[in-house]
C-alpha cells in the first residue's frame, strides 16, 4: 500500500470490522486525508468516541484515542481540551450517540463554543444494536422499533448546532467524498465548536429493512435525497420534503471557551498580585 494515509493506521487491526460497503470506512478515509492536510503531528491529535459502530473508529487510528461510554464523547473531550488546550481534539459520534443519549452534551458543547471538532456519522439508525430508530431517522422510514414507519420528526442537527452556539457547521454525505474532506479540514482548523454531519450508509441495519439492501443501492439513495444548500433553498416547499440540504451552514468567529477560561484565570491572578 503506497497510500500515505496508512501512516495513521494501527495496521494490525485491519481489515476493519465494519460490514461490506459501510459508510464509516469512507468517512474514516476522509478524516485522515483532512488531518493529513493540516500537517499536524499524530501526538497532537486526540480522537474521542462514544459507543456504536461509528465509535469504533478510534480503535483503528494511531492518535491519542479514547473509546468512552455511549453519548459521552463530548464530556470526555471537554475534559481533555480544558486540561491541555494545545491538543487538537476531535470527537466521532453516531447519530444515536450524538443526538439521542448524548443530545444534551451536544447542545451544551455548542453553547460553550469549546474548540472541539465533532464529526457526526449520521447513518439514520442505531447500527450496532440492530436498527432501532434514532432522532435522525427520517419520518416514514422503517426501523426494527418502527416496523410500520417512523412517526417522529427528525432533528436537523446542523440547525440545532448552529442555533446552540457553534462556530462552524456543515453537512455532507459519503457519496460526495471530496466535499466531506474539505468540510472536515475547515472544521479542524476552526477555533471554536465545529460540527460536520455526514449522511452515511448502513446497508445492514438501515438498508435491509428499507429495501436498500446493497451498498450501491444505499449510495444511490443518499445521492438522490441530498441536495446542495443553494439548490434546496430555491425548491418549492413540496419538493423539499424528504430531501436533505448539504453544504456549509455557519462559519463565524466568536470567543472560544478555553481562551475565555484562561483570560478569566489571568484576570483573577493579576488582581491578587495587585493586592
Amino acid at each position: 500500500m503506497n497510500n500515505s494515509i496508512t501512516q495513521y493506521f494501527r495496521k494490525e487491526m485491519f481489515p476493519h470490522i465494519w460490514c461490506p460497503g459501510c459508510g464509516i470506512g469512507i468517512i474514516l478515509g476522509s478524516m485522515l486525508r483532512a488531518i493529513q492536510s493540516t500537517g499536524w503531528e499524530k501526538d497532537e491529535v486526540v480522537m474521542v468516541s462514544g459507543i456504536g459502530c461509528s465509535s469504533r473508529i478510534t480503535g483503528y487510528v494511531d492518535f491519542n484515542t479514547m473509546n468512552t461510554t455511549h453519548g459521552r464523547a463530548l464530556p470526555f473531550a471537554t475534559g481533555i481540551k480544558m486540561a491541555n488546550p494545545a491538543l487538537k481534539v476531535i470527537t466521532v459520534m453516531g447519530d444515536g450517540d450524538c443526538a439521542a443519549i448524548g443530545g444534551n452534551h451536544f447542545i451544551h458543547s455548542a453553547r460553550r463554543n469549546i474548540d472541539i471538532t465533532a464529526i457526526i456519522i449520521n447513518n439514520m439508525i442505531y447500527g450496532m444494536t440492530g436498527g432501532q430508530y434514532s432522532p435522525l431517522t427520517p419520518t416514514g422510514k422503517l426501523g426494527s422499533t418502527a416496523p410500520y414507519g417512523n412517526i417522529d420528526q427528525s432533528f436537523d442537527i446542523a440547525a440545532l448546532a448552529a442555533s446552540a452556539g457553534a462556530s462552524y457547521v456543515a453537512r455532507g454525505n459519503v457519496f460526495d467524498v471530496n466535499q466531506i474532506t474539505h468540510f472536515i479540514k475547515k472544521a479542524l482548523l476552526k477555533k471554536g465548536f465545529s460540527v460536520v454531519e455526514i449522511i452515511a450508509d448502513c446497508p445492514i441495519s438501515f438498508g435491509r429493512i428499507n429495501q436498500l439492501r446493497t451498498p450501491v443501492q444505499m449510495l444511490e439513495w443518499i445521492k438522490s435525497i441530498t441536495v446542495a444548500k443553494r439548490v434546496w433553498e430555491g425548491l418549492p416547499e413540496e419538493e423539499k420534503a424528504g430531501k436533505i440540504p448539504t453544504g456549509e451552514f455557519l462559519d463565524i468567529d466568536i470567543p472560544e471557551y478555553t481562551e475565555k477560561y484562561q483570560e478569566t484565570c489571568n484576570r483573577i491572578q493579576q488582581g491578587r498580585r495587585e493586592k
Partner: protein
Amino acid sequence: MDKKNNLKVYQNEKTVITVNEDWCKSCGICIHFCPKKVLVSNEKGFPEAKNIDDCIHCMLCELRCPDFAINVEKKEKTVEHIVNQKGLED
C-alpha cells in the same frame, strides 16, 4: 497482471491500480461508480481493472472504498515517453 500475495496489480504505461484482496469486502462501490467503467467484478466480487486504458485518475474508487483496498497511481512519465511524444528522438 502480476500477483503478489493477495495484492493484485494491474498496470499499463499510464496507470497502476492495486487491489488488496485481503481487505476488499466485495461491496461493489468502486465498480458501480467508476465514471469510465474501468473496473469489473470477478467471480469473488473483487474489482479487476479490465479497462485500465480508460482510467482518468479521478481517484473516486480509492476515495470511496470503505476498506482502503483499492489504490490508483498515475505513473510519472518516463524520459523515453516524453521524448517519444515530442518526436525528438530523431
